[in-house]
Structures are given as C-alpha cells and as structure tokens.
C-alpha cells in the first residue's frame, strides 16, 4: 500500500510574491476554491501584514472553504502574529531564519535571539487558540545541530509542524534526504518540505524529502514563485504518484491550472 502524503499549496502566498503577479481578492478566492475542491490539505492563503486587501481576501477564503485547512504566513514578529490571529486562520505559519547567513549577516542577531523570538511568537499564537507551524528559513544552508535543537524546543512549545525551507534553492536530492532524515530521527514533529527550483531539482528534492519522512510537501500551481519558482504541483504529483498516495490526481491539477492560467502566467 502506498504511503499517504499531504500537499500544502502556497500559490497564494509564495507563488504570488513572484514579480508580475498580483491577484485581486476575487482571483484569490477563485484559486482557493479550486484548490479546496482538489482537497489540498492546507492552503497558504497569504500574509496578513501586507494590508487590508490581503486580510479581506484571507477572510473570504476561510469563509468559503469546505475541505482544506487555511493557513497564513507571518514574520517572526509578535505584532505580525497578532495581525495573523485576527484573520482567524486554522494555522499560523511563522518563518524563522535558521542559517548563519540569515541570522548573523541579514538580521545582525544571534542564535539565542532567534530562539527567544520564535518562542515568544509561538506563545502569542498559541494564546490566540491557533495551530502553529514554524518554517526553518534557509534550512539548506543551516547547521543541522542548531535545527535539531530548535525543533526539539518547538516540539515542547506545541508547534505542530516544522517546515524545512530551501529558501535559495540549492539542495540536491541526497542533501535533502540527509536533512529531513536527521531531523526526523531526533524529533517527533511532523516535517514539511518547501523547496525552490533554482537548479531545476524542486520535484526531485521534494520527492526525496517525502521518501525521507516529510509528511507535507509544499507546491504551487505552475511552479510559480521567487526566482525559478517553487515545486510545481503537477510535476511533483506526476513524478511521485507511483510511490505515494495523494488526495488528487495530476489530471485534476491540470484542469485547475487551465482555469487559472490567465491569472498566474504573464
């Protein structure tokens, strides 16, 4: 029997961040309804701190969904998390930088600051009565020991999933497998894999992540996203349906893509 894997669709968040794509609230609602019909496990609907239009879109998506869980993306800032809670999503996803490049060079902070900040944000979200998932940003360039410590700490704090983000798209299949497997061996928190296609390996890396134990796989319609995009939903299902079971077929994804092509491809 094939092992079941769940799809987290981030077309409306990471996908829409791609230059030249700007969706109206009614566009977002249409795409979300189609994804919901596909029974995608989770739809990442947007980033509340962007503004009122974005929050209104998210509210409508939540109101209309029938099957999927709706999540929102939040920076690791308490005020952003509060803004996310106000949208009443099923899940708040908080992005936490974990590579030294991001922590020391971009943020000019240190590991203790990251640990303290993420715990504070998780606490705020939990008090808001929402499920919390945490994204390890730039996990592909991070110290695995630090990520294991973070995962163990977040598991105790009640985080339900750890998302490993290959933010700059430099993973290869063997490296993806190693990282997911190592984290999987040290914590019981379910793992989600989120990769980018900079080296043309997003489908392959996602599949290796799933083989190594990741339960959730992040995809976007047409593979839209930053730079060379995210993991292409259709391509990923086509590549891996022989070994894993999904709630949808590649034909169904293809039908959805036909309906929204004019909104997502410029």
């Amino acid at each position, binding site marked *: 029997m094939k092992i079941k894997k769940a799809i987290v669709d981030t077309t409306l968040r990471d996908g829409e961040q791609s230059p030249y794509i*700007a969706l109206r609230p009614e566009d977002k609602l249409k795409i979300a309804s189609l994804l919901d019909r596909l029974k995608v496990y989770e739809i990442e609907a947007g980033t509340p701190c962007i503004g009122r239009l974005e929050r209104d879109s998210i509210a409508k998506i939540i109101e209309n969904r029938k099957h999927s869980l709706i999540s929102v993306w939040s920076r690791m800032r308490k005020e952003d998390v509060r803004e996310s809670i106000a949208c009443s999503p099923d899940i708040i996803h908080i992005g936490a930088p974990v590579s030294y490049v991001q922590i020391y060079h971009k943020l000019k902070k240190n590991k203790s600051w990251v640990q303290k900040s993420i715990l504070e944000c998780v606490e705020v979200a939990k008090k808001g009565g929402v499920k919390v998932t945490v994204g390890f940003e730039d996990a592909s360039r991070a110290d695995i020991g630090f990520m294991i410590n973070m995962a163990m700490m977040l598991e105790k704090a009640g985080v339900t999933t750890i998302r490993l983000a290959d933010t700059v798209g430099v993973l*290869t299949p*063997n490296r993806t497998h190693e990282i997911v497997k190592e984290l999987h061996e040290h914590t019981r928190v379910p793992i989600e894999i989120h990769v980018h296609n*900079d080296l*043309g390996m997003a489908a392959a890396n996602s599949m290796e992540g799933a083989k190594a134990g990741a339960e959730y796989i992040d995809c976007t319609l047409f*593979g839209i996203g930053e*730079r*060379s995009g995210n993991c292409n939903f259709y391509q990923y299902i086509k590549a891996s349906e022989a070994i894993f079971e999904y709630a949808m077929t590649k034909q169904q994804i293809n039908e959805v893509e036909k309906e929204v092509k004019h909104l997502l491809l410029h």
Partner: protein
Amino acid sequence: MIKIIDTTLTTIDNHLPSKDDLHNFCRLLDKVGVDAIEMSIPIYQRMEYLPEELRVKFYLRIEVQAEKLKYGGFYRYILHHADCEIGMISKIQINDIREIISLRTYKNLEEVCIVGLDDLLCYNYEQEMIEIKKALPKSQILFCPENTYGCASALAVQWVVSGGNQVMTSFAGHGNKAATEEVLLALRLAVRHKPNKELQDLKDLTHLYSKITGEVIAKKKPIIGEDIFKVEAGIHADGIVKNPVNYEPYDPKIVGGKTEIIIGKHSGKKAILLKCTEYQIRIPEEYMVDQILLKIQEVCTMERRSLSKEEFIQLVKEVCGYEN
C-alpha cells in the same frame, strides 16, 4: 574526472541550423565548461568540419559501425550496439530498474552509454546506481537520464555525487534530457566542480539555442530564464539589497544575469526608497512612503500586474504632489 557530454546537436536535425551557428554553438558550449559534444551525422554534414581550436571533444552518433570509417576524426562514436572496439560506445536504453541486471550482458564493453531510467528517483536510486556499476565493473559508464518526470538534472548530479564521472545532458534539457546548464551549476555548488570560473556565455548560448531551435526559453527557467533574478517581495528585496547572498543561490553575474528590483503589490518600503534613488526622484518623507505603498498595492491589484518604471515615477509624483 567529471565529464559533461552535451547531446543537443543530436536532437535538432529538423531545424536546419547554419554552419556558422553550429560552430558558434560548439564554441560556446566549450566556453561554459562542457567536456564533450555529441552530434548526429546530418549536423556534422552541415558543420562541414570539426572546429580544431577547442578544448572540447567530439562524439558522433552513428547507426552502423561502418559509418565510423566514413566519418573519421571523432573522439568517440556512439551507436546502439557496438563491438568491443576502442573508441566505440554502446548506447543502451533502460526503462525500468528491473532491466538493470541485464546490463551484465555488456560487461566486456569498454564504454557504455545508459539512457532512460526516468523514474529512478522513485526507488532507492543510490543502491540502483551501485547495481549499475556492479553490472559493468570494467566499463566506463556514460549516464544519460531522461526527463519524463522532471528529475533528469537531479539524477545526473546524483550520478556524479555517488562516484560516477560521465553524464550526458542537453542545453535547456532539449529532447527530454537533463539540462546542461542546471547540471553545470548544481555540480559547481554541490561538489565544487568548476571547469570554468565564469558562465556568462550561457546568455549567448541561450540566444543561439533559441535562434537555432525556435524554442522560447521560459522566463522562469532555472539558470537561463530572463526573469529569475527579478525580485518584488519586500522581505526578499530588502535582504538582497543588504547582501545578495541572503536570498540568491549564486551571484547572478556568474551566469551573465543581474538582480533587478520590481515594484509591485508585494514591495516594501526599502524598495520604494531604492527606486526613488535609482530614478532620481526626491526621497519622500516616511509617512509618504506608506501612502505610496498603499497606492501601489491598490493599482497593482486592480491591474493584476507590477508597475513599469514610468508608472512608478508618475505614481510617486501624484502621491507626493511633486511637480512633473
């Protein structure tokens, strides 16, 4: 030693490229660090002769062994079933991992080219790669994964990572292969294989490839797509301005590219200030920047797109009340 053998010139017989374009294509492949170029007889006939001044080696795809005598001067000849003769490579199609065991039949061959195995990643590919090497213990193996499942570049790279040393690719993955440019970059990042310091010639190669084949490269195509270094999202634009390494996998200059900040629905304050400086517009007060951002969100959402330079300048002037 790692060898990348580009097979693009075996897949374009129907496109009628000119002699000069073909010579130029070979020269550019040589410059970006490809080690060998495989071509078909019709392409060789169009080229009229092999370029001599290049570092790259030339392989010819032939149908029967006798053609080797007719078309001399190639480093290797590839055909479906070759004898044990030196300089000949047998090309074997393997469509299913259960066929790997049958490779033992070819164990006496000096060099074997294995084509196919599109779905190898669905299995324990590392073990299967070991089985391939075990089945052909004395042979040099050229691994040519096909791309039906979008995993060929990954498989080619994994072949090298697992100790193999020869992979066959094609530019932009033409003809359902691993993409030469993806394998070059991935090997550079994963195993520090740097046959060339710079890969700027990928840009000219992309134009020439499009000219020869008529194929339009997707704007988001890894390594060679024209939009891959454009960034709009506030968090990414800010990070890249601080230090490109924050959000870019490699320096765009390596492949002849350049980071470009695009103004759109997801832009942040830093991008606005940056663009005002770039376009030599008076820097607005902070509270005005918030107003500009709101207006940009509104316009981009309604128009379902990002802003052009002229539109951005006009919008800033309108919001801030600057005179034209």
